[in-house]
């Protein structure tokens, strides 16, 4: 059976080879993007894992004391890990040869570069030690991470004083660094990556399924001929399945190969301020194989669904009857899922993983529902246009939309989904805080209330007139019970020096610039989200352009006979080109706009309406411009084929 299928493919002529090749190519691209999405999740997990050693589990009787803080320097945030040995049996932390002695400071390579030429009093003085070594990769989330490990004496107040900022760990006794909690930031990034995966995988899956049916559609006549010579429906299904699955397998392998080749490039996408270790992108390698096997299976399933209409009759060529109206139930489902998402997003209390999972599921559901309502809208648009069309091109385009709304939708689905994605993220505020030093600066640090006065006196002595030290009550809303705030008013020029003096005087507390340093963290997240959005939109657009190209070529192949006869009877090719362009552009204009709005409406309640900022407008404008250009360009790809098809009047056995 397999050899017969192979023979049929090879002998099927250029058309058969072309459509089989298109299927393989489409599946290859889909697989490449899938591998990317899968690897992305593993890569974030790898990064998160490498931050675990900084928050090991607390034990009663351990070998070392650990505490962490975030120090700020200019526009950068540095993760500080304070370590002190208790009984001489503490293991070396990841990325270090030995446990740091008191007074030793180990810097990550990126931090060492950053501090090149920076006077010691501006930064290193904070740690009261000498640079003793460079941290290895195992200690870092990514190559550009800024980390300092500081060896302390277990008796020093730095290793006993409580730390009050959110992302700090107060001194705790541990017996090693093998297990712990990942940085909360990476927990957040992993959720975003899941969201990005949903946004990318759904269009890719739709595209892959459409590609699977390409081969099937092209087979109509030959399948009917097979039925005519007595092949059973089962045999015909099997033959086609073998052919499609083989093409899909070839595509899946090729796509995975392309992904492997591309990993070093993908590794350069900066998230959280740094590129990736290439190894992180290979962390999901076992799953790579799973994807290679799963893709052809999914393609086969999609092909079977596509085959249902074909195998019934030996007379094959499906006769065109009045196009079935798509039922309004599609609209109802879409509305229901959207409302469910809106309601669920309102009920979210905490950042519970289960709630997040449910929300993500519903969000995926909304995207799938967009795919359900799309063809229905296309058909409605077609009906309206068919009634009002004045030119033959418009009439042809409109009738085609009514006749096969699903095919038209497949061509524009990518752009519509991209519009939905762009609309969803356009409202995410992307405000960046200005981190330049101002003329006068105020630094604040949170300390225990009982010791505030003593520490402030310490600090005043240390800064020696460079800053005004004051003690204040904590913020009534956010400040923790039993704390006080020590503040230092100074000038922009002395900022980092005062900060260094304060860090030492306040027992390792990390002084922050008011209203600025809290923005550094969110700046990092905003930058990462922006990169992520760009990547997701890039993937979705690539899918959109590919599906427009593949569907354009497919529709020419599907209708080659009609096109040839139209040419014979003098139909100008420009009219057909115009009709084919309108078939895509008309629904794209309406659905593209509609999906941008839907995306906005759905996410607005979730993130709060902040209005459109410049970035949002830029994303939207880019979406529309690139999307339109991509689809028109992709459609133009099939024009030479249309020309060749129309003008092919060489003698043929019909």
């Amino acid at each position, binding site marked *: 059976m397999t050899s017969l299928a192979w023979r049929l493919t090879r002998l099927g002529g250029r058309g058969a080879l072309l459509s089989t090749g298109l299927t393989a190519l489409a599946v290859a691209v889909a697989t490449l993007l899938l591998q990317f999405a899968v690897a992305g999740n593993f890569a974030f997990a790898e990064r998160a894992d490498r931050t675990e050693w900084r928050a090991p589990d607390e034990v009663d009787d351990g070998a070392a004391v650990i505490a962490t803080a975030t120090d700020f320097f200019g526009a950068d945030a540095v993760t500080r890990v304070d370590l002190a040995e208790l009984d001489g049996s503490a293991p070396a932390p990841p990325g270090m040869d030995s446990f740091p002695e008191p007074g030793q400071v180990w810097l990550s390579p990126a931090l060492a570069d950053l501090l090149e030429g920076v006077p010691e009093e501006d930064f290193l003085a904070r740690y009261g030690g000498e640079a003793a070594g460079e941290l290895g990769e195992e200690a870092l989330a990514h190559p550009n991470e800024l980390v300092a490990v500081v060896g302390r004496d277990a008796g020093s107040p730095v290793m006993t004083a409580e730390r009050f900022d959110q992302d700090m760990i107060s001194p705790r006794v541990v017996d090693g660094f093998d297990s712990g909690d990942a940085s909360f930031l990476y927990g957040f990034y992993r959720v975003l990556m899941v969201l990005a995966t949903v946004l990318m995988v759904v269009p890719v899956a739709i595209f892959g399924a459409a590609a699977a049916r390409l081969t099937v559609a092209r087979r109509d006549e030959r399948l009917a001929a097979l039925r005519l010579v007595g092949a059973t429906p089962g045999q015909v299904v099997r033959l086609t399945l073998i052919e499609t699955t083989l093409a899909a397998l070839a595509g899946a392998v090729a796509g995975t190969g392309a992904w492997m080749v591309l990993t070093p490039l993908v590794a350069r996408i900066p998230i959280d301020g740094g590129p990736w270790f290439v190894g992180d992108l290979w962390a999901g390698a076992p799953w790579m194989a799973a994807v290679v096997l799963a893709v052809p299976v999914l393609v086969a399933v999609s092909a079977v669904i596509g085959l249902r209409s074909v195998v019934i009759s030996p007379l094959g060529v499906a*006769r*065109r*009857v*009045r*196009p079935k109206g798509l039922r309004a139930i599609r609209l109802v489902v879409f509305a229901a899922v959207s409302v469910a998402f809106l309601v669920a997003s309102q009920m979210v209390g905490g950042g519970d993983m289960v709630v997040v999972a449910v929300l993500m599921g519903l969000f995926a559901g909304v995207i799938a529902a967009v795919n359900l309502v799309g063809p229905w809208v296309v058909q409605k648009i077609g009906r309206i246009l068919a009634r009002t*069309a*004045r*030119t*033959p091109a418009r*009439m*042809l385009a409109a*009738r*085609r939309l*009514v*006749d*096969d709304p699903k095919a038209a939708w497949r061509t524009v689905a990518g752009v519509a989904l991209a519009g939905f994605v762009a609309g969803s993220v356009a409202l995410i505020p992307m405000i960046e805080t200005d981190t330049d030093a101002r003329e006068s600066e105020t630094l604040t640090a949170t300390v225990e209330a009982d010791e505030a006065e003593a520490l402030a006196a310490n600090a005043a002595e240390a800064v020696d007139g460079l800053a005004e030290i004051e003690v204040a009550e904590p913020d009534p809303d956010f400040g923790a019970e039993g704390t006080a705030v020590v503040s230092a008013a100074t000038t922009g020029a002395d900022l980092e020096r005062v900060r260094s003096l304060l860090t030492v005087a306040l027992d390792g507390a990390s002084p922050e610039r008011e209203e600025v340093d809290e923005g550094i963290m969110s700046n990092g997240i905003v930058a990462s989200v922006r990169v992520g959005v760009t990547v997701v939109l890039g993937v979705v657009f690539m899918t959109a352009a590919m599906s427009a190209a593949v569907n354009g070529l497919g529709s020419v192949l599907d209708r080659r*006979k*009609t096109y040839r*006869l*139209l*040419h*014979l*009877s*003098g*139909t*100008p090719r420009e*009219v057909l080109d115009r009709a084919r362009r309108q078939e895509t552009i008309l629904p794209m204009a309406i659905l593209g706009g509609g999906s941008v709005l839907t995306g906005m409406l759905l996410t607005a309640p979730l993130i709060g309406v902040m209005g459109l900022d410049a970035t949002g407008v830029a994303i939207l404008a880019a979406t529309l411009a690139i999307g339109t250009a991509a689809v028109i360009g992709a459609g133009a790809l099939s024009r030479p084929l249309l020309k060749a098809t129309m003008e092919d*009047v*060489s*003698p043929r056995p*019909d």
Partner: protein
Amino acid sequence: MTPPMITGLGLHKRFGSAVALGGVDFSAAPGESVAVTGPSGSGKSTLLHCLAGIIKPDAGEVRLFDERVDSLSERQRSHLRRSRFAFLFQFGQLLPELPADENVALPLMLGGDSRPKALEPAREWLGRLGLAGKEDRRPGELSGGEAQRVALARALVIRPAVVFADEPTGALDRATGDQVMGVLLQTVAELNAALVVVTHDPLVAARCDRTVEIRDGRLFDHPMAGARR
């Protein structure tokens, strides 16, 4: 004798090394119907394509009245095929997604007529060919004979000078084929157009005014000239 409407003189055409036409003279007068017969691969369709300006002959000339057809540009020939010639094929020339009336109106709209203006004669022709009440049907909802009559209406709606038919009844049963052929001959005669029919079917050929046969790229007047009707 009336001057010929469509003329081919000394037509040569080869595909690779295969000679499809080896010096063919052909003509048809207004109101005349000519059947072109011959074995498979003899060059029947090539002759039709040359006469209709679909392909250019390697040598020889084609004239519609006094106008050279073969030397026109592709654009001009397309326009000619749209405005002066009409085509009828075995099947498949109707656009499956268009209802019958729009299929018929399409050539008029391509010629620049507005939609309402094009639909009016289209429906009239459908009515004339016995398809009143089926204007809304799509080709898939029509029987083979009905679909072929829609194709005929589409061919005739532009009031062509020459109708080219390639096995117009090939996909129909005998009774339906007879009926379509009858309508074709009658309406072409009413329009005083020339009809060129490529066919295998001796019964179809017999209903035309004249029969010519192509063998190995050469044209022979058929010994038994068909007696009309």
